[in-house]
């Protein structure tokens, strides 16, 4: 029996109600339209469900429908569970969150988000560019660009060569130079060059959309928790345990997380209670900012100086330079990267910010520092590109000259004009320097060395340190665990910035090295497991555990900035530099975007070509793109506001309904009061002192500003002040024997949203 007795009873009752309605419809004081609508509805209901109770033929159908609904509900629930179970690494991140707090966990959540983004980018790149070329393009060794040149073939498989991404690696699908410039390939006539260009640009477009959408979504969540200002400790006290936990490990995690959350609240409270000596604090902050600006300026100049010197060194004989002079740039960069962040942290102690805000400042400053890194790298790369372009011109001329020679000789020797193409093995053809490959290799080498450095740092800086502290402690004079060096804390800012800059590198290099995105996927995957293990094994929680800001928008903002910065070089290269003449999918063309023009002219009808020539005016494109971005962001944000609006409307409606109930039918609200009084012994019914009415409006304003400063007053000066910030008037406790007075107009409504449901609980205000 799919219908339980309770359901049958409820159904019978509803049926009776509807039948009664049909009979009494004429007597109701409603408009005709309303009556007709209700009549139709009631008749439909009776017809449908009378069958269900066995009175008609419809019982089986009804039972079937009910069963299907139940199955659907179960299926939906299972699907939701499945979707939640599919979120990767949720358990790991919860573990980290319980033991280290939400700020450390926010880094891992960011890492997971990045992984998702990179998976999509990988899907684009792999599916639309790499796979068609491998499956439908010419195989390795058939044309010059796909073959290792003769002189390099001996060393092509050596590990040292492969490590530098030369040899076989360079002539594989990992790099730009492998791709052929045939307009269409294979049976499906897949337009590879067009696809390559569109994917390259599409990667940026998609990343931009996703970052903006995430920022918009995050900014909405800020509105919900705004009411958590009251009863923080009480709620943590009474409602923090999760009663559905049955697994001992999970219980341990829950213990740790309850402890951490109490500690976080304590830190927040301490911050609110700090003594304010505004002038001293402002002065110290200005001083700190001044020192840091000086440091940043100094490091910027140092970088500029070193780069200039390296350019001079490059012109000199390579053998005469010492190791230091050859690697001066990298050396100076690493030194700055090691020394400056701790220096910034020490100076930041002057500022005495809340740890969450101090983290943001630290992030911003290290970001500025690393921009210098980026600048030098791009500068060096640009120099190399220019150099290669020069060489290319000469080789190109040489190749053309050789070809012409061959044709001339052949036709004069055999006296024909039908000259077959030169029969040269692909490995022997003269090659141009292919600057795009050099750029791609440069990026890949940078990313790989970055990975190696970061993994090594974790291994040495965290693991080795922890091992030494633990085992050397037995035979050392001072307590290594409590004093220097002790166990490391997880460096949130350094890691986040590393991730952000890494992604910038990927964005810049993906156009010239399609395999880079795949490499990044592997890196992020291994990084997740490796860092989770390292954090749980070798780190200790911060001394002051603080709650992460509710929105991740700061990280997203940095990411957006880096996205724009990495967009610029690529767009510049696409628009201005000309591609190599013998490698890559755009070889032979004047500019890379010529592919698009060619496609439009040849494949699409002619009027589109006209439209396009008008539309590609840069003065038109740039404002259009910016406008669309702004619209997208505002649209995404407006959804969140709509939701917040609906919630507020609901609350106000509830408040109004309760007021109405209170006025019309005081029985229904006082019932709860009577029950309460029945349950409790008489001695709890001590009447409290009556509140004065004027305070609540003033208190509403103070509470409305949501300033946390209200609490420290309450906490520090004892209980009495707390009453001023409680919004609703207390229970009168004496039985209510008079009707409530006339409603106070707007002031009553101003309180509406806050005490919503409670207003109806028999809380008649003091008589006016």
């Amino acid at each position, binding site marked *: 029996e799919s219908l339980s007795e309770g359901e049958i009873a409820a159904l019978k009752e509803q049926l009776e109600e509807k039948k009664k309605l049909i009979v009494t419809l004429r007597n109701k004081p409603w408009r005709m339209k309303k009556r007709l609508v209700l009549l139709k509805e009631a008749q439909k209901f009776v017809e449908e469900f009378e069958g269900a109770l066995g009175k008609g033929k419809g019982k089986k159908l009804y039972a079937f429908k009910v069963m299907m609904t139940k199955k659907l509900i179960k299926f939906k629930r299972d699907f939701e569970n499945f979707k939640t179970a599919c979120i990767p690494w949720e358990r790991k991140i919860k573990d980290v969150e319980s033991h280290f707090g939400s700020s450390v966990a926010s880094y891992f959540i960011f890492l997971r988000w990045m992984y998702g983004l990179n998976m999509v980018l990988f899907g684009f790149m792999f599916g639309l560019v790499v796979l068609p070329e491998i499956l439908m393009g010419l195989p390795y060794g058939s044309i010059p660009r796909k073959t290792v040149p003769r002189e390099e073939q001996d060393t092509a498989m050596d590990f040292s060569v492969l490590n530098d991404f030369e040899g076989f690696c360079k002539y594989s699908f990992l790099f730009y130079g492998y791709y052929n410039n045939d307009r269409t390939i294979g049976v499906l006539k897949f337009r590879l060059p067009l696809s390559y260009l569109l994917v390259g640009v599409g990667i940026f477009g998609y990343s931009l959309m996703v970052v903006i959408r995430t920022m918009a979504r995050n900014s909405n969540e800020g509105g919900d928790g705004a009411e958590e200002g009251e009863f923080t400790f009480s709620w943590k006290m009474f409602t923090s345990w999760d009663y559905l936990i049955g697994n001992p490990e999970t219980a341990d995690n829950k*213990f740790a997380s309850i*402890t951490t959350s109490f500690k976080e609240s304590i830190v927040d409270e301490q911050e609110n209670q700090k003594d304010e000596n505004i002038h001293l604090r402002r002065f110290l902050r200005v001083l700190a900012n001044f020192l840091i600006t000086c440091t940043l300026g100094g490091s910027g100049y140092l970088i500029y100086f070193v780069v200039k010197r390296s350019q001079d060194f490059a012109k000199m004989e390579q053998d005469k330079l010492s190791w230091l002079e050859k690697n001066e740039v990298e050396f100076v960069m690493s030194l700055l990267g090691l020394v400056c962040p701790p220096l910034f942290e020490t100076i930041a102690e002057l500022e005495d910010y809340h740890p969450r805000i101090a983290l943001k400042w630290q992030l911003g400053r290290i970001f500025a520092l690393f921009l210098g890194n980026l600048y030098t790298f791009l500068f060096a790369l640009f120099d190399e590109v220019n150099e290669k372009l020069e060489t290319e011109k000469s080789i190109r001329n040489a190749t053309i000259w050789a070809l012409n020679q061959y044709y001339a000789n052949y036709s004069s020797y055999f006296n024909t004009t039908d000259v077959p193409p030169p029969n040269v093995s692909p490995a022997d053809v003269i090659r141009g320097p292919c600057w795009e490959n050099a750029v791609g290799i440069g990026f890949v080498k940078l990313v790989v060395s970055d990975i190696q450095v970061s993994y090594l740092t974790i291994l040495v800086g965290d693991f080795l340190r922890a091992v030494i502290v633990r085992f050397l402690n037995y035979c050392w004079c001072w307590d290594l665990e409590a004093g220097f060096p002790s166990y490391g804390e997880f460096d949130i800012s350094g890691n986040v910035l590393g991730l952000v800059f890494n992604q910038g590198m990927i964005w810049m290099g993906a156009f010239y090295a399609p395999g880079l995105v795949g490499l990044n996927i592997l890196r992020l995957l291994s990084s997740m497991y490796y860092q989770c293990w390292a954090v749980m094994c070798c780190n200790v929680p911060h001394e002051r555990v603080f709650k992460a800001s509710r929105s991740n928008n700061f990280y997203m903002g940095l990411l957006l900035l880096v996205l724009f910065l990495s967009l610029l070089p690529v767009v510049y290269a696409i628009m201005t530099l000309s591609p190599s003449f013998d490698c890559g999918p755009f070889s032979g063309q004047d500019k890379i975007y010529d592919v698009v023009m060619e496609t439009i002219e040849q494949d699409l009808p002619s009027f589109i070509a006209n439209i396009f020539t008008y539309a590609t005016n840069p003065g038109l494109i740039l404002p259009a793109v910016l406008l669309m971005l702004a619209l997208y962001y505002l649209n995404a944000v407006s959804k969140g506001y709509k939701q917040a609006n609906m919630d507020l409307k609901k609350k106000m409606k509830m408040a109004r309904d309760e007021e109405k109930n209170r006025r019309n039918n005081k029985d229904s609200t006082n019932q709860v009061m009577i029950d309460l009084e029945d349950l409790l012994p008489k001695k709890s019914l001590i009447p409290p002192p009556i509140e004065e009415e004027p305070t609540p409006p003033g208190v509403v304003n103070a509470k409305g500003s949501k300033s946390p400063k209200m609490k420290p007053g309450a906490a520090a000066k004892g*209980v009495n002040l707390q009453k001023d910030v409680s919004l609703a008037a*207390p229970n009168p406790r004496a039985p209510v024997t008079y009707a409530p007075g006339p409603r106070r107009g707007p002031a009553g409504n101003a309180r509406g949203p806050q005490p919503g449901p409670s207003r109806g609980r028999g809380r008649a205000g003091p008589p006016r």
Partner: protein
Amino acid sequence: MGSRASTLLRDEEIEEIKKETGFSHSQITRLYSRFTSLDKGENGTLSREDFQRIPELAINPLGDRIINAFFPEGEDQVNFRGFMRTLAHFRPIEDNEKSKNAAVSEPLNSRTNKLMFAFRLYDLDRDDKISRDELLQVLRMMVGVNISDDQLGSIADRTIQEADTNGDNSISFNEFIKVLEKVDVEQKMSIRFLH
């Protein structure tokens, strides 16, 4: 299991329990089969050890107090009627009950009664007030030695400050209700029957 259960539970008993607690027929049968599966001794009553075998209660810091709530004063065994009487507090509130005017005697699973159940977990000495010491006990069970005693004391003080409105330095039942008025107690303190 199901057939054995229904033969041991007579229809008149089911009707009585239904009237007293408000559970439906199928719900009572479900709960009876759960009762019998917990009753390892098969003597029709549950002891404290039977409850402590439930993993969720075993690792719960307030587990012992919850178990105590099932046993009436001074007794060590609870039969099925007593079991259902306590569980009646956790019956889900149906929508059509919310809009009806309250019956003469308030049902066991009203919001107030649910909160009363929770209140009694914290108020050990049954003086209808949660004092600072009782809060400290709860804190020590929840957090253990990971937070210093001073800080625990401040947390307890702060909690009382937030909740106390009549200045007696303890939390009465009304203040408790006020603290939890924004928490969806009806949904959290309900058994989820998945029919």
